[in-house]
């Protein structure tokens, strides 16, 4: 094929793609319906935007056709990336130093946001990701209702703490166990189902939980949610100004950042514990059985494994971590409401696991940092508002990109990092790095 032919074909492909994009974009991109003063919908034309999309489609498709028709035809061998040995300790050191370094650099006032929004929030998502990773990544059970267990943990703390006066040390495991119990109860009837049906039933259960939270006003206060429950304290010392507070006791000037810093370390320790348990379990018969279940359930049964029990433990342990994370969420926010536990939340956590490459601890953590951190960063960039208009909400763009990323991941690396999975036990020596 000559070069001319090649370019011609690429152009033809690109023209087709442009036509398709034009069809997809009309009228949804070309027009926008907005209510006017009388609340009647009026159309606003956005033809420039529409043509930009078409142009982008042409250029991208053209480039792709040229590229894929050319030299890159040779099948690219998947490069196996091995985690270097120093990565773990360095990452841990960075995590430990992070809040102190931020406070040192920015002062306690400016650091608050960095410790709380970026530090604590992201770590909670890491914990959630690692928890769901057990159910989805290791055992291969698609749980679309993970936010329900998260909600159980959060509401458990918000309801039990004021009622019993128990502190969070006692309630952390209680929240986890309650969520695990729910995981057990929901898991039990659905175990016989095929993978995709199981996913849909978990979704249905989660929606039921959420609707009950919204409507059971007497207990949950509906959409308004619960607040005013006891917050965090440092071994009995509350984080308040004045002589009885933590700051006065240790002789520091009071600062709002103390509480998030303490919470940060608390979440960090719990997340590391979750990580340790997951990694250890993978080398135990239970963890191996989870992975075997993901690979081939029928073969598991032929080896005498009780698949029902194995699924239940995966479900319950995943839910346990979600319950603990829910408790931490309540401690961080100081209030809980049903709007934090929608399907979109489940989808976000699932995306963290999927994009992290189901099964990989490091991948999940990186995905959490990226997905949660990046959208918070976008929120900061106020100039975006001047570009995209006042109601610009980066969270929408985040979920839009997350959706596309999930599709892309399934198409190009469907098993994520699992395809380069390390065996949990070796007969021979470790391969050279």
């Amino acid at each position, binding site marked *: 094929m000559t070069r001319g032919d090649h370019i011609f074909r690429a152009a033809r492909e690109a023209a087709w793609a442009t036509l398709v994009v034009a069809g997809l974009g009309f009228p949804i991109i070309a027009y926008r319906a907005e209510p006017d003063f009388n609340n009647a919908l009026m159309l606003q034309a956005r033809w420039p935007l529409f043509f930009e999309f078409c142009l982008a489609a042409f250029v991208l498709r053209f480039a792709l056709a040229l590229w894929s028709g050319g030299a890159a035809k040779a099948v690219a061998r998947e490069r196996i990336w091995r985690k270097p040995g120093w990565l773990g300790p360095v990452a841990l050191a960075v995590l430990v130093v992070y809040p102190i370094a931020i406070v040192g650099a920015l002062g306690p006032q400016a650091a608050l946001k960095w410790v709380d929004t970026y530090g604590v929030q992201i770590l909670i998502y890491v914990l959630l990701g690692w928890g769901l990773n057990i159910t989805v990544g290791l055992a291969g059970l698609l749980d679309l209702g993970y936010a329900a267990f998260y909600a159980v943990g959060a509401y458990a703390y918000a309801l039990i703490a004021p009622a019993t006066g128990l502190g969070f040390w006692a309630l952390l495991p209680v929240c986890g166990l309650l969520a695990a119990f729910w995981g057990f109860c929901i898991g039990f009837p659905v175990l016989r189902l095929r993978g995709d049906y199981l996913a849909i039933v978990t979704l249905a259960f989660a929606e039921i939980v959420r609707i009950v939270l919204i409507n059971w006003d007497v207990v949950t206060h509906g959409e308004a949610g619960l607040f005013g429950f006891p917050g965090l304290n440092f071994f009995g010392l509350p984080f308040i100004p004045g002589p009885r507070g933590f700051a006065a006791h240790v002789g520091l000037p009071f600062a709002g950042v103390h509480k998030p810093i303490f919470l940060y370390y608390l979440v960090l320790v719990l997340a590391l514990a979750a990580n340790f348990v997951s990694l250890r379990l993978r080398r135990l018969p*239970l963890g*191996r059985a989870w*992975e075997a279940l993901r690979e081939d359930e029928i073969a598991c049964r032929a*080896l005498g494994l009780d698949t029902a029990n194995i699924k239940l433990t995966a479900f319950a342990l995943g839910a346990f971590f979600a319950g603990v994370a829910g408790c931490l969420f309540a401690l961080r926010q100081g209030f809980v409401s049903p709007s934090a536990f929608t399907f979109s939340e489940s989808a976000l956590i699932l995306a963290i696991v999927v994009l992290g490459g189901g099964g990989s601890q490091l991948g999940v953590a990186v995905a959490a940092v990226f997905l949660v951190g990046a959208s918070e960063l976008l929120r900061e960039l106020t100039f975006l508002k001047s570009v995209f208009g006042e109601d610009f909400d980066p969270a929408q763009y985040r979920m839009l990109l997350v959706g596309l990323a999930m599709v892309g991941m399934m198409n190009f690396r469907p098993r994520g990092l699992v395809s380069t999975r390390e065996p949990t036990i070796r007969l021979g020596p470790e391969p050279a790095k």
Partner: protein
Amino acid sequence: MSARWIDDPILRVDALTMRFGGLVAVNEVSFAAGRGDITALIGPNGAGKTTLFNCLTGFYQPTSGRIAFSPERLDAEKIERLTRSARKSDGDTFLLERMADHEIVRKARLARTFQNIRLFQGMSALENLMIAQGRSLSRAAGFSVLGLLGAPSWRRAERAAVDRAAGWLERIGLTGRADDPAGELPYGDQRRLEIARAMCTNPALLCLDEPAAGLNATESRDLADLLRAIRDEGETSILLIEHDMSVVMRISDHVVVLDYGQKIADGSPVEVRENSAVIAAYLGVEETDEPAAEAALAESAKTGSDAT
């Protein structure tokens, strides 16, 4: 010659029937398999062999019939007593049609392989064998608690399991590839690995669904040697579905023939080879072509026995 499948059976199937809607895949089949024997189950495509296996191992719930099994001794009177009761087992005698698949493997000690290989593809060969020992190991791991803490008793148990797995890998010639994903092994190795994995569950009866399918002549011969060695160790009896007549004739002690879901012959390899119904059914030829079929079957059997 007294036949072991009559005197000392390990498995007895009585009037087993399996229906799928209108299709009767297995129709009133009765036979017994002898303890310490290699019993071959043969028949043309679609005869119902795999379906029968699935009933034995609890993957299908048979429509009717009885499957009695005992790793130690199968006693007719005990079977009758058990049948009348509602129980699944009495001591070491089991009624498999009443049990769930994982119980059959764990308690009655049946193990199986699949016609289309079912290894844990993404996991290493060694891990495949470790999972097969998961039952006993998980007890040693104190249901994960001791294992999480890294208790010495757990470490010892794990080492023993690895040794056992390594022994099997050695036996099937896969020591060098122990740490490679099972899905990346050549086809013949996968077949043998699946057998080794089944053996790691410590079975009294090993059920193999077409283990020689897709193997070349040398590989089939090695496989036959392996199966004979397993039988000769005396711990495990074998029930085998096989199309390759050279393998069947060479290693089996007893042959059961199915056609269209019905048993049409049952006996020693020599008896079955000369049975005209088998020749007609198995080779799928009309009665008139019988001499040709007989010749063909004799031919394939001869290559089998020659190779021994």
